[in-house]
């Protein structure tokens, strides 16, 4: 079974970390993921850019593009796609296409760091 582990934290707090703090946290995590990778059990790992770089697309007849992260609390995170796009505009277009005639929302967030992983699909 594949499990997704999603990371949550207060951006203001993480943003106030020094480089050394940040490195220390990553090193601590690497100790865990390193073991999994060695066993071929680590899938893709991504670190996202700050929410200030995010755009939210509200699905609907004609999906609505709103600057900023997805901020509602009554909807739940149900899945995600990773797409390779030349520009933010292109990524937004993908989300608009998917959301047309649906309800719900997509948040488009540039990826800051990506490792493809080694786990078999």
């Amino acid at each position, binding site marked *: 079974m594949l499990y997704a582990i999603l990371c949550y934290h*207060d951006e*203001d*707090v*993480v*943003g*106030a*970390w020094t480089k050394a*703090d940040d490195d*220390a*946290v990553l090193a601590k995590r690497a100790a865990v993921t390193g073991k999994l990778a060695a066993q071929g059990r680590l899938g893709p790992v991504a670190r996202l*850019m*700050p*929410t*200030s*770089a995010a*755009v939210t697309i509200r699905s609907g007849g004609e999906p609505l*593009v*709103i*600057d*900023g*992260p997805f901020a509602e609390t009554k909807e739940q995170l149900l899945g995600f796609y990773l797409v390779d796009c030349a*520009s*933010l*505009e292109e990524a*937004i277009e993908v989300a608009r296409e998917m959301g047309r005639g649906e309800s719900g929302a997509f948040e488009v967030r*540039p990826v*800051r*760091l990506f490792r493809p992983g080694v786990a078999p699909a």
Partner: protein
Amino acid sequence: MNDIAWIDAAFRGARPQAIGALLRYFRDLDQAEEAFQEACLRALKHWPVNGPPRDPAAWLILVGRNTALDDVRRRNKSQPLPPDKLISDLGDAESDLAERLDSSRYRDDMLRLLFICCHPELPATQQIALALRVVSGLTVNEIAHAFLVSESAMEQRITRAKRHIAAAKVPYETPGAVERAERVAAVAAMIYLLFNEGYSASGGDAHIRLPLCEEAIRLARLLLKLFPGEPEIMALTALLLLQHSRAPARLDADGAIVLLDDQDRRLWNRELIAEGLALVDKALRHRRPGPYQIQAAISGVHAHAARAEDTDWAEIDQLYGVLERLQPSPVVTLNRAVAVAKLHGPAAALAIIEPLAPQLGGYFHFFGVKGGLLMQLGRAEEARTAFDRAIALAHTPAEAAHIRLHLDRVLKDSQPA
């Protein structure tokens, strides 16, 4: 991370919001800062035991307000002290804390706090110092160090600025749309100034002061979070990120300036570039061009070029042309001339900058660029005069040393072989 590190990060993260809200309660900067300080002291006692609160800012605001009120009561001695237990119980009541504090006011609280720091009556240096002290929470010693002045001089500067603000009328009611936009613009200008102060120090030995640049980026992000739909604020943040991405390549091992053309682009910070470009993208979608967007786009053109010779100078020339129309300034024209020199040669560029002499007669970069163009045209004697002038106007030893390097080359070339 140990207790102190995460608590310290939480304080830094919560500070603008907490001080902003406390300022609304007390309408006095010193009192707001003291209340925050007091709340932090309590937090140091409680958080390591009870774990971090879900909303550190809300915790600090509430405790800060309560302790300050206690203080007033204590001074009046008319009421008994409330037991410390009341405050230590806060940890359990935290979940509804966020609701009890009106979150919709936070944005204006923080904007007001930022805006107070860039009160138009304050000189730029005081604005920046005050923002670093009050919003960022840097110590006076740290700020003094960054500005290369003594701690007592900086203490005085900040005290003077605070006195000024206390005397000036700061409106506490919720601002209207126009006023809010004005405040945002003033704060953006202050953040830009702060970044430039770090990017090309206006005096002293250190040519680049990274902590100032990093603090400016943090404040820009904060402003963008408050106004996520403002393309100019997206662009301001992008501009700072893109400029800052080159920091590792801007000085060589001896601290000498390395110009954009000669920088080792492998040293540029790719993560900052990626984030900057994403924000430029996001801003341009709005099709509401503004000066920060154009500047960020120009910086983005450089970021896109893997080698200096790959730079799309035609695009840069065009963007500076737009900027000249949006925000006419001789400095912008001077910058466009650099692109023109790349595209059409030094003579064409010189023709553009020569009329700027009366306005830029005291500007270091003007004579640096002029000397460079004259040198390319083989007019050694005139180049030397321009470089001499640039050295006289240099703000930092690194700037002067850089020009001296050119000067040496002129001298060498003009000597008979």
